[in-house]
């Protein structure tokens, strides 16, 4: 069964460490390792002794049409080794072009040319970092005209061609489905079985009629329903609650963790009762051992 964890944030570091368990895993943003202070890096490097750790990035800008930054990837690789993570995840997006960094995940023009570029970059990343890459769907507020592929098609094709996995952000999916009027369940149904290796869940807000991805509210019921749908078709390793602000109400995050665990446990019982037995995933070395420890 997947572990249920939270995205690590320094502002809530002590709260998070004290809350293992019920928190079963932690997702670290590799850019916090690279840019953080000594004290922050030391705190992050101590986390694998506490619970399984997963690695996520925001600074790669996979869709930018220049070679991925190899120095950055070497730093990712070094931190991945120290943290003993099984894979590395990043966004199917771009944030910068040479000389300009908006620090905001932006949607890609979904053309075959851009798909080629992304696939080349994914292969470079997997080779350089030495780990599988998971591609995350982002929330977006505009689309480029003249798409040749829809979002699910683009994501699935990029993963099929490179062997990358999917990190499905069900809150981003819910937001996009509101803002662009499509069926999020249909999106989930188009993802190849067992391609989703991880999920993100979060809570956002509204700006007029626009749903916004702010990571500062509890996970809404509609997002939890999407989680149920995803768990019916996939066997992710981990489910991560992303909360970036409002840590004085950490109880809300722990409430989210418990709610997700209940959905996970129900989904696991359903799978055990009705589905044919699936071959167990080969444990990833120490990750398998840590997963067993967390389930005690």
């Amino acid at each position, binding site marked *: 069964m997947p572990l249920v964890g939270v995205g690590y944030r320094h502002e809530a570091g002590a709260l998070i460490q004290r809350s293992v368990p019920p928190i079963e895993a932690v997702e670290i943003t590799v*850019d916090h390792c690279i*840019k953080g*202070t*000594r*004290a922050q890096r030391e705190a992050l490097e101590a986390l694998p002794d506490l619970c399984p750790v997963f690695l996520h990035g*925001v*600074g790669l800008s996979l869709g930018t049409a220049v070679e991925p930054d190899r120095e950055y990837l070497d730093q990712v690789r070094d931190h991945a080794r120290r943290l003993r993570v099984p894979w590395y995840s990043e966004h199917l997006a771009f*944030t910068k072009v040479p*000389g*300009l*960094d*908006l*620090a*905001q995940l932006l949607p890609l023009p979904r053309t075959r040319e851009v798909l080629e570029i992304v696939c080349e970059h994914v292969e470079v990343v997997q080779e350089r970092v030495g780990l599988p890459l998971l591609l995350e769907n982002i929330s977006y*507020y*505009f*689309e*480029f*005209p003249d798409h040749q592929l829809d979002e699910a098609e683009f994501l699935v094709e990029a993963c099929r061609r490179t062997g990358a996995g999917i990190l499905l952000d069900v809150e981003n999916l819910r937001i996009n489905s509101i*803002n662009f009027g499509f069926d999020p369940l249909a999106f989930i149904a188009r993802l190849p079985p067992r391609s989703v290796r991880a999920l993100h869940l979060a809570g956002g807000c509204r*700006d007029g009629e*626009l749903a*916004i991805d702010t990571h500062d509210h509890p996970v809404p019921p509609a997002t939890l329903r999407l989680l149920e749908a995803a768990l019916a078709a996939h066997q992710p390793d981990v489910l991560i609650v992303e909360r970036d602000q409002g840590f004085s109400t950490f109880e809300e995050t722990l409430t989210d963790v418990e709610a997700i665990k209940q959905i996970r446990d129900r989904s696991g019982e359903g799978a055990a009762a009705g589905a044919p037995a699936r071959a167990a995933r080969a444990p990833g070395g120490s990750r398998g051992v840590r997963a067993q420890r967390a389930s005690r």
Partner: protein
Amino acid sequence: MDGGRLRTLGRLILAKRLGKIAAVLPATCRCVNRHAPALMQAFATACPPSSLGRQDNARQFHDFILGHRGDPPAPGYLADLVRVEYAAAAATFAARDQPPAPPPAPLDPAWTAFEVRAPPDLRLLETEFDLQRAMVDSPPAELERGRRRQVAVVPGAGGARVFWLEAETAKLLLDLREWIRMKAPDQEDARWTVESLAARGLVELRPCASV
């Protein structure tokens, strides 16, 4: 493309960027938000972000304010305020990546002579404004120019420290850029002055090397 949504996205991106800058330069941002809000948009237009880091964005804002030539208008003390605040922030960032520094060595009563210098990373700035009045929740629209004062910024464990100095203390620190040998002071007030400067990290002390 939906222009309304693009504007919303632009607003969100700018708010996030200004939040990063305010985390590094809180007094400067309070002053600008209260007395020169148009400056924020002028900055965003003139200086698109080149990095996602807080310090880089704060440095861009610092450079923009120092290069600002009055349109839109801004409080007269703003340039000095951002200079002091950024110096403190930069010193804090630099110190956080170093191993913790040992506590400053006191003046040992057994020394008959010692060497003293101002720390190499000490920064001295000048201002004619009483900037402490601007580092509050409700900064004033203007400050009167007064006598020139020196401000020392010292990196330290847990964050940089800022000291408002008398002119003769600042001159002393400027004269102490290199190690200088001194006889141990006989008089208590002279000894107290040296110890006080050392305790605040404004000077470093060491015994004279044996011959």
